């Protein structure tokens, strides 16, 4: 039986590819290819968007507004990341289990704290934002917590994984020198993960700028809010001004994180 199936097995993947391709082509027939499918004014809009790209609105009022909104966006992101780092530090270290000596306690603690981290990052920052806006209204706190909580979940999980993956020899040597588990954390685990953690945090900081901009769509102020307002007025030249500011922030943070990484050892 096995010999009979063997040639089938080698062709398995190509057969599957053909089947999926056929299914895709077949699905195209179920689409009603009428004129309604495509936005009739699409071309005009495209031209308008491109015009905005070439000639963004650089009038003093709009630039001043863009600077102010950029500031709000960056402040939300920075404060949100601070909250995220605090959450990540506490739950990540506890979730790595390295502080617990008894095996049973370690397994339980890892389950609980990693579970908490998984829960808070399972909910997207936009959903958190809507929840917080519903609870505390359109206040900056809503933005900060909406960013900080899911990002804390992401950073905490990465920190826990990094701590679990450090080479075991330096830790054993510290234990042999009489270090307690907390001292091993200070002199072993944390220095060993520092470089990677900083570079990952910088990357997440960049993401949090984008999230912070998007989150202001719910009305929390910042670049995203301005983009949304300009979009609904069909002022694409203003949209591009705000987008350029957003791109500039991300590029600046990227440059900062690169210079930071270069100075880090390992």
């Amino acid at each position, binding site marked *: 039986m096995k010999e009979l199936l063997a040639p089938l097995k080698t062709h398995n993947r190509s057969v599957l590819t053909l089947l999926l391709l056929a299914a895709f082509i077949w699905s195209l027939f179920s689409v009603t290819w009428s004129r309604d499918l495509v936005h009739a004014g699409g071309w005009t809009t495209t031209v308008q968007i491109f015009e905005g790209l070439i000639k963004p609105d650089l009038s003093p009022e709009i630039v001043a507004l863009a600077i102010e909104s950029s500031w709000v966006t960056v402040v939300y992101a920075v404060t949100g990341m601070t909250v995220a780092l605090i959450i990540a530090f506490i739950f990540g270290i506890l979730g790595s289990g390295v502080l617990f000596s008894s095996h049973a306690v370690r397994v339980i603690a890892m389950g609980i704290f990693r579970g908490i981290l998984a829960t808070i990052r399972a909910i997207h920052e936009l959903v958190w934002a809507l929840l917080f806006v519903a609870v505390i209204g359109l206040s900056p706190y809503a933005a900060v917590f909406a960013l900080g909580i899911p990002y804390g979940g992401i950073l905490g999980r990465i920190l826990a994984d990094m701590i679990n993956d450090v*080479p075991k*020899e*330096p830790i*054993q*040597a*510290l*234990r*042999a*020198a*009489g*270090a*307690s588990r*907390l*001292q091993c954390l*200070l*002199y*072993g685990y944390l*220095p*060993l993960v*520092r*470089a990677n953690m900083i570079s990952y945090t910088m990357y997440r900081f960049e993401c949090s700028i984008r999230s912070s901009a998007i989150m202001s769509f719910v009305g929390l102020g910042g670049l995203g809010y301005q983009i949304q307002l300009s979009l609904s007025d069909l002022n694409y030249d203003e949209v591009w001004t705000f987008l350029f500011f957003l791109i500039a922030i991300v590029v600046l943070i990227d440059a900062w994180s690169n210079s930071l990484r270069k100075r880090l*050892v*390992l």
Partner: protein
Amino acid sequence: MHIVEINNLSKQFGRKIAISSLSFDIKKGETVALIGPSGAGKSTLLNILAGSIPPDTGIYLLDGKPIQQYKNRRELANKIGVIRQQFDLVPALPAIHNVLAGRLGEWGFFKSMLSLFVPQDKQAAANALQRVGLLDKMHDQTSRMSGGEQQRVAMARLLVQNPEVILADEPVASLDPARAEDILEMLTKLVAEEKQTLVMSLHSVEYAKKYFSRIVALRDGEIFFDLPTEDITKEHLTGLYSLKELSQE
């Protein structure tokens, strides 16, 4: 006075017998080289002596007291220090903190945290680094140091820890011959100055004869011979490293 006394020590990993009924004593101030082919049980024996794995059967008295009774890590760290290959330092820390890690047994949590910002007992670290010839590299990142320098930092850490017995598990295995001799010479000299006891596993019989007063040879988890260095002959060594299984077939 015996600092280490072991009697009928055995250890099995699954079905593999790593060590079977080993017995020997080590006097204070002795320098013992553990030699033998790979898989003879040298590392297992050193791990048991360090207290990091428990033996299955047998008695191990460290300074007259069963190892199991050393509940406190700090108490054990005063008796026994370990040095392995160069990978047991924290590369991301400056040398001084790797050296001061030898003090962690005595320090509380807050003192050790403070020391990362304002080094405590700096004088002790400086003395130790001076004795291994690395005083000028005190604030250098450990990862930027060569293998031989890293091993000297590990020795400085042992000097700061200042245990009565030093266990060394192939500390020169990843170094070139010149560096290896350099490290062995320095380590045996420091041990003599501090009147410590040294037990080191080695691959090189030549180094064992040059730097140690006594050689214990292990083969298949048993003692093949245990002699003062000057009594060892060529026959002893040929027997130790010959492939017994093959020659019997």
